[in-house]
């Protein structure tokens, strides 16, 4: 896998990931592991009006992406997390979720093709 190319494609920061995690093989290992992530619990929580669970799911996704320096997805997950921080949903929530879904799909597509 050309990890640097994948990072460039998905709006990630490879240099930051390498500084954070120290070893290129670790970055690749975690990217492969990231394939196992699913947005289904987040989508179900939002669809079901469960703001507490949606906040936890968005917050967790933000944390993973930030640690892997998947910057673009981390930012959209962060926006959704802050929208849900009061454990309520508003008119902005669906759009913010759509941004997460779009950025998540970009990551998954690039990682699965690499």
């Amino acid at each position, binding site marked *: 896998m050309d990890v640097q190319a994948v990072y460039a494609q998905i709006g990630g920061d490879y240099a930051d990931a390498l500084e*954070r995690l120290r070893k290129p093989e*670790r970055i690749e290992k*975690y990217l492969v592991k990231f394939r196992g992530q699913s947005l289904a619990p987040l989508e179900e929580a939002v669809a079901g009006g469960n703001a507490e*669970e949606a906040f*936890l799911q968005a*917050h*967790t996704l933000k944390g*993973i992406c*930030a640690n*892997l320096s998947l910057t673009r997805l981390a930012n959209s997950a962060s926006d959704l997390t802050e929208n849900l921080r009061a454990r309520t949903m508003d008119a902005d929530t669906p759009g913010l979720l759509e941004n997460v879904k779009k950025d998540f799909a970009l990551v998954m597509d690039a990682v699965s093709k690499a």
Partner: protein
Amino acid sequence: MAQGTVLIVEDQEINRDILIDMLEDKASILQAANGISAITTLGQKKDEISLVLLDLNMPGANGFAVLEYMNNAGLIGKIPVIVISSEVDSDSVRQSIAMGVKDFIAKPFKESEVLARIARVMFRHKTAQKPTEA
């Protein structure tokens, strides 16, 4: 930290694995994916655990539930705790300090920072545990 045992409490598998990779050649590792599992492990292995790395935001029993258990069981003074969380707002920090947490590591974290903070907390803990010479 050599030969010590670190309990990593983190619900997200990738973040847990990152911490394990950073620490596994420096300490023995125990891991818990949620607060209940952490409390069980602390109850069973409290005599061998040297340090707890604790996430705050976890489903079910969160990091504060683990801290509450450690306080009630008299473990908080014996086993130092470092919180690793993106929730480093003032309320979380204030509550954690009040419950005996020794330090904080903000997510996203760097290996160098994780190792440095662990070393500092362990040094302080060992120094504090030494009996005062007459």
